[in-house]
């Protein structure tokens, strides 16, 4: 270092002399290799999964509009009716009429999408199927919770909104999963 080198210059010299490469641990590659998902045309990348999640959030947000319509409809039809029992829904559950109607529509969509997804399931990567199934379980659980709460408090608009948005999310997840699976 020259006598006249300023502290800033000296720091710059030292910084420039730093090694641009440092050898990583030798066992790092095998660890990375073990985490690489097989690359096929069916492979879903993380960004796609994030898009699924983001879409679910968007759908949840947009469902508030649907809920608003649903709640307006409710003002004209306040009676409650028994919901058509499904294999996953207890017979005793009762919902406000407009939500019961909405639910039947949602369930028809869900059934149709499930059939499509089942047909194409083999063309999806197992990790994708697992991700979709996990997301659907969360959606189902959220629907059941909202439904149960609505039984106790059928006039609660927030709960109705949650109920609708959770169904919307489930349908959107299923729809996107079927779009990801190539037609066989």
């Amino acid at each position, binding site marked *: 270092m020259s006598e006249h080198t300023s502290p800033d210059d000296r720091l710059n010299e030292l910084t*420039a002399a730093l090694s641009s490469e440092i050898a990583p641990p030798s066992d790092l590659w095998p660890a990375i290799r073990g985490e690489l998902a097989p690359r096929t045309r069916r492979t879903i990348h993380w960004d796609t999964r994030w898009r699924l999640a983001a879409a679910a959030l968007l759908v949840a947000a947009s469902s508030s509009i649907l809920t608003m319509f649903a709640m307006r409809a409710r003002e004209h039809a306040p009676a409650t009716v028994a919901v058509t029992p499904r294999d996953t829904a207890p017979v005793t559950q009762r919902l406000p009429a407009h939500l019961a109607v909405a639910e039947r529509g949602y369930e028809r969509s869900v059934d149709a999408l499930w059939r499509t997804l089942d047909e194409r399931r083999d063309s999806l990567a197992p990790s994708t199927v697992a991700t979709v199934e996990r997301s659907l379980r969360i959606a189902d659980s959220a629907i059941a919770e909202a439904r149960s709460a609505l039984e106790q408090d059928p006039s609660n608009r927030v709960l109705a909104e949650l109920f609708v948005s959770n169904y919307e999310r489930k349908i959107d997840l299923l729809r996107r999963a079927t779009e990801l699976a190539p037609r066989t």
Partner: protein
Amino acid sequence: MARVLSLVQHRVSIESPRVARRDDALVDRARRGDVDAFELLYRQHAGRVYALCLRLAADPVVARELVQDTFVKAWDALPRFRADASLTTWLHRIAVNALLERRRGEKRRAARVSLAGDEDEDEDERDIAGVVIGPDVATAIDLERAIGALPPGVRRAFVLHDVEGYTHEEIATMTGLAAGTLRAQLHRARQLLKRALSL
């Protein structure tokens, strides 16, 4: 002096056309699922990514995890990598994002209190005081130690700008830091390093 600055500021862009062409070919193969090609890309770039992660994290264990995250994410995202971009820069961005995600997670969990003051200027004095300064401190090893002792936010700014040579705009894109914040952090980093190295 100008030569030194030039070296620092252009470290990132030192990638010969031959290396870039070889990367392109390997990227193409890796995109199609060729893990052997991806391993070659790893062998070629891991040293620089690890150096960056080690300096950003100042912790070999965390650095290792960051490199692992970086290459796993790179594998997933490779089909969307644009051939006109530098693979090194792209990998560095993934690494910086991985670090930022990690920091956000740590802050959310509040499990590591020592990191909570990432952007807190008051932390600077305390952290830098931990650097042991000897009579022969003006060496690269001491500089590495001093960099490692910088507060995380300040360290990130210094490593990306002064060590890796990214521009302010590139760092803003990577980290979301405002220009003024970055300038302040760089100034702070240099002050702390000069003091730590007795320059």
